[in-house]
């Protein structure tokens, strides 16, 4: 058989054995894009590593947070909660410095997360929960706000199930103490991004800092 024919036949026979799950991929591609929007632009890995080296001693030790089973105490809705579910409202985290952000990324994922994401400035996250709809926004100084995840949510007792537009579901345990909302990720059905488990991003956005009610 001539080489050219063998090449064509060989490629096409092999290709028929590769059948990717297109629908799962389509859901995942949306999830990855949202992750990019959470913290965008590039950062030099070397610079990031230098920053990490400088602040590692003062940063929170969360290298093993993936195995962390801590859950907050049961919900304690306060009198300040508006009508709707106890967690309805607009919530914001304190501003997270780039150093704090970097050290919050497990070291084995740090390069990959840093490759495409903006850890060059401080960031705060805003969470709006209202009438069954949820939206997350990131805010940085001197930059326009960036829309992150959004979708619908349902509260069941001390748990809240959030579903984004691609059908990906996240379940969190929530606690309110005064005007502070704390979330703990219980379930995350999103696939990894560039080898980084989605749980890493969930931790950075929702768990790392408590939210404070602003309205």
């Amino acid at each position, binding site marked *: *058989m*001539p*080489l*050219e024919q*063998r*090449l*064509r*036949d*060989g*490629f*096409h*026979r*092999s*290709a*028929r*054995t*590769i*059948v*990717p799950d*297109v629908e799962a*991929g*389509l859901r*995942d*591609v*949306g999830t*990855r*894009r949202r992750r*990019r929007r959470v913290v965008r632009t590039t950062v030099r890995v070397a610079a990031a590593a230098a920053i990490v080296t400088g602040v590692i001693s003062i940063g929170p030790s969360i290298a093993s947070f993936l195995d962390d089973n801590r859950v907050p105490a049961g919900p304690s809705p306060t009198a300040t909660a508006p009508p709707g579910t106890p967690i309805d409202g607009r919530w914001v985290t304190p501003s997270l410095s780039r150093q704090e952000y970097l050290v919050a990324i497990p070291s084995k994922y740090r390069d990959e997360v840093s490759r495409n994401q903006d850890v060059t400035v401080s960031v705060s996250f805003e969470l709006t929960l209202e009438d069954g709809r949820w939206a997350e926004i990131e805010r940085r100084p001197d930059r326009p706000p960036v829309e992150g995840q959004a979708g619908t949510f349902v509260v069941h007792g001390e748990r809240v199930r959030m579903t984004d537009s691609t059908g990906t579901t996240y379940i969190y345990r929530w606690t309110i103490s005064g005007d502070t909302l704390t979330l703990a990720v219980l379930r995350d059905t999103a696939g990894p991004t*560039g*080898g980084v488990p989605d749980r890493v991003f969930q931790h950075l956005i929702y768990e790392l800092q408590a939210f404070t009610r602003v309205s």
Partner: protein
Amino acid sequence: MAEIDAIQLCEDEGNRMATLDDEYAWFYRAEYPMVSRTVFFVVHDRAKAEDIAQEAFVRLLERWKRVSRYERPDAWVRRVAIRLAIRSVQRERLRPVLERKLELSSDAEPVDVDLLRAVGELPVRHRAAIVLFYFEDRPIAEIVHILGCSESAVKVWLHRARKSLAVALQEEAVEDAP
């Protein structure tokens, strides 16, 4: 009144996004399998191929509004995917890539493993050119666009790749191409 306007704006935006997503989803369903197969023949690692193809489609989605107006968005996404694949192979060239298992599904019909191994031994750009030419049946002009190089470079790569494959597979190379 302002509130009604704001709601209308949100609905308009929602409708626009829905249309955009539909178009993108259609394109994704049509092109993703082929792109991931092409990347597989370059990186020889199924999981990595799908991840690279996925990354290319994420970048496409981020630029969909602009790229969808291009004459050949399929060439654009291949260009990104192939470049990522080449970079991935170059990063791992210290690892014995060919010793990694060729991951094919268990119910695969007989595949020409010798051919895949021989292709895998080619320099990565030669490999990409061969895959685009013989697997995707892309004309030289498109391969030039996808690989971002000159026409003469692609012709040289194809020629050298055929020569290497002919020796490795003990086949006679017939220049059915430029």
